């Protein structure tokens, strides 16, 4: 590199205007400044450092970025961070117990080999969590389970083992409650 060239002055952040966003994430309330065009997925990942929420398409089809927004599964790539002002968000980082013990859904995914590369996995776990939390008696037929999972793409597993993991999750959750 030519050393006679002066190092360029580089701004620390972009010149976008910024407005405050306050939201609760995995039980903790935070306020940060965000550009109005910053996607919620990028806010969660890059501003808050919760990188378990992944981004697979940025057009709302693949489901990798699924989080829970006010109690329901939602695509964080289809919302701006500023739209989540006041929202309560849960991400994959908030699913396991505080001591690191896997949630029954996570445990079931491991037991059933429901993940390979693991990139889509947080989105699947959040979709399943959202559904199972709001459905006390889930329909465990093959068709019904696949319908629940049909908002998330996986390119590795061919889905069979995720379907099995869904059933196993319900078993483990029932056992934990029983």
């Amino acid at each position, binding site marked *: *590199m030519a050393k006679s060239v002066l*190092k*360029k002055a*580089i*701004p*620390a*952040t*972009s*010149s*976008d205007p910024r407005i405050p966003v306050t939201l609760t994430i995995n039980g903790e309330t935070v306020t940060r400044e965000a550009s109005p*065009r*910053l996607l919620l997925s990028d806010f969660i*990942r890059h501003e808050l*450092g*919760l*990188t*378990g929420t*992944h*981004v*697979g*398409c*940025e*057009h709302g*089809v*693949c489901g990798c970025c699924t989080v829970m927004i006010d109690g329901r599964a939602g695509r964080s790539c289809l919302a701006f961070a500023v739209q989540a002002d006041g929202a309560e968000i849960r991400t*994959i*980082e908030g*699913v*396991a117990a505080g001591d*690191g013990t*896997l949630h029954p859904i*996570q445990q079931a*995914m491991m*037991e059933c*080999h429901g*993940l*390979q*590369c*693991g*990139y*889509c*996995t*947080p989105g699947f776990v959040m979709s399943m969590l959202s559904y199972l939390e709001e459905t006390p008696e889930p329909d465990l037929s093959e068709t019904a*389970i*696949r*319908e629940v*999972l*049909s*908002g*998330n*793409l*996986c*390119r*590795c*597993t*061919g*889905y*069979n*083992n*995720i379907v099995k993991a869904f059933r196993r999750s319900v078993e483990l959750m029932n056992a934990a409650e029983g």
Partner: protein
Amino acid sequence: MSTRQFGEPVQRNADPALLKGEGAFIDDISLPGALHAAFVRSAHARARIRSIDTSQAEVLPDVVAVYTADDIGALDAELPMLIPHPCITSGGKTQRPLARGDVFYAGQCIAMVVAVDRYAAEDACAAIAVEYEPLPVELDLDRAVADGAPLVHDDIPNNVAAHFVQQSGDPDAAFAAAEHTTTVRVRLERSTAAPMECRAVAARWDGVSGELTVWDSTQATISVRGGLASLFDIDEDRIRVIAPNVGGGFGQKIMMFHPDEILVPYAAMELDRPVKYIEDRVENFIGASQERAQIHEISLAARKDGTVLALRDSFVHDTGAFIPYGIAVAQVASTSIAGPYRIPDIWVEMTLVYTPCVQVTPYRGCGRPQACFAIERALDQLADELGIDRTEIRRRNFIGPGEFPYVRDGLLFADGLAVNYDSGEYEKALDLITETVDLASFRTEQEAARAAGRYLGFGLGFYVEGTGLGPYEGGHVKVHPITGKVYVTTGLTSQGQGHETVFAQIAADQVGCDVKDVIFAEGDTQAHEWGVATFASRAAVVSGNAIHKAAVKARARIIAAAANMLETDEDSIELRDGRAWIVDGNRSVSLAEIATASNPLRYAFNEASQTATQFAPASTHDGPPLAEGQAPGIEETDYFSPSHATWAYGVHAAIVEFFPDTCAMEIRRYLCIHDCGNMINPMIVEGQVMGGIGQGIGGAFYERCAFDENGTPLAANFMDFLMPYATEVPDAEILHMETPSPLNPLGIKGVGEAGTIPVSQVVASAMEDALAPLGIAPVRESPMSPDMIHRLLSEARSR
């Protein structure tokens, strides 16, 4: 003895972190001060660039640098031709990192912007004005090779990128003498790997130490390091390439270099700041490698009893605008063309055609799905013409279990060696699938359904897969002196195949420890110095056996040291539960103690290490603490270099119901019999096979990289390129056979690509069977979209 771990469905060591969101994919890695890159990409398939005006972008406040071909110094040159071959016209065309003068496909990189964040970088890309002079294009493979067709490259006549003929035996004589011949022409469309994590690269330059660190979602860290060292003219030791967690690869990430893999490190060095490029989904569809498009015209020469004597196949292969990966995909197709069948005489001709589309390099299956579709469709037709059952005709042509090794002289596989099948029980696999599906009962059910106006069908497809290619991989095994944990490394990368678990199983069996106590590292050039890459279903075979060999050596060292420490003979030592035990006794020493005692120390750090200081040597021999020729610690390295590919195989079958009103097809049952030799971990094998079937279903029904007549991509997002969800993939039943490979100590064969290969054939064959009463023409294309089916039905009705 400890329970043997090889062969057990051991749960994966990698899962807890991935399940908790603690994986480290490239964009999850925080690089303080990182800048972000974005690319201006060609809006035209083929055009001359009249001008590039970057002035409006350069003045934007958040922009740090704008690069065109004029700004990248010595990198402004054609990228490496990775796999040269004498049959490639004029040595082969590869692209430049940034276009100079001409563009050759829509999506080709023209300029790179580096800015403070990705949003600003994309703003700047939009502010760069490129003036084009569009040139004519021809995307149809048949027309592209005709005289007068528009050329992708001015100096490549008829767009022929390569032409190659291979022959085994004397097919002309066999055809001349044949009692029956048949010909089919089949076509497969372009598709793409579409890993859930798009490609990504980040780089950090340390000007003080002169070290470049590159995080690259590549399947080939060691090869990328070699390539970067060569392009940047830096010692390999100064470059570290890391592929951390990678969200699927399926071959797309074996291709190097996509332009960003060079330009991002370049910008990091030039700007002295970390730089990240995270490919988005649209870019993955227009700028990353694709595959699959081929047209085969295949003829079979047979006796009336269905014995196939000879095969001729002439196919055209769409290689896209460039051919960096040489003829590999077409070569694999050409050498897989005879499947599991004896067919002694073969002539196969391939013509690789430049098209104004993104380059073609291997995608899971790599030419095999195409070859399987061609031979299996031809065999179905031959059976129909000769009045032989489609299942029976396969039985009559299988290579028998006593005929291995079965060599096809004259057909050179992708490793440059003659096709040489090593083992298999093809007929047994066919029997197993027809028994499991209960074909006889199905035929009764099918007849009853037809009488009731319903359309059920059965189809099957057989395939072989040459796996576990060389040149070599290494394995390194070390027992840590403090913790007794076993460190294992190899030069591969993982995209989710469970290497950390299967390789731990292999090492744990030798060292006698728990699989969870094996700490495995790969995907980092500093973790393991030598190796090749993850591709071609080779990881388990090549690295697995290298690690096994290294672990066998480590076991011998552990036993020798333990015998010494326990004052007994080596024959009286057994290894289990992380300790060395005296057989039939209760005295033992731990792996940590053995590893500590095997490393003569001067200083005692803790209680265990007191026994290892030079003042209290564990060694009982006289002389220096380390005997002549002895190395400290428990540490071994070995390599495995296969003599040639080992051939896995399988057969899939489906029972489908077809609905003529909607042109929809429902898979009522899907079965797979698969044989990849001895299985290290059946749970992981099944996961690989099922994942392959899922991609095969995508390929058979939905996935198509479509272009308009100008070469503009029409399927550059998940709304237009339809990937199957859980609702589209059937619940497949997978049964295993295990015919060991004689070519490696563990008797294993590769499994990564297998599941994808025969699915289109199975679906096509089942569809023909279901729709036979409606008199449709044979199915000759994949994917089999409702449009295509509607066309077949309309044609049948109008006949």
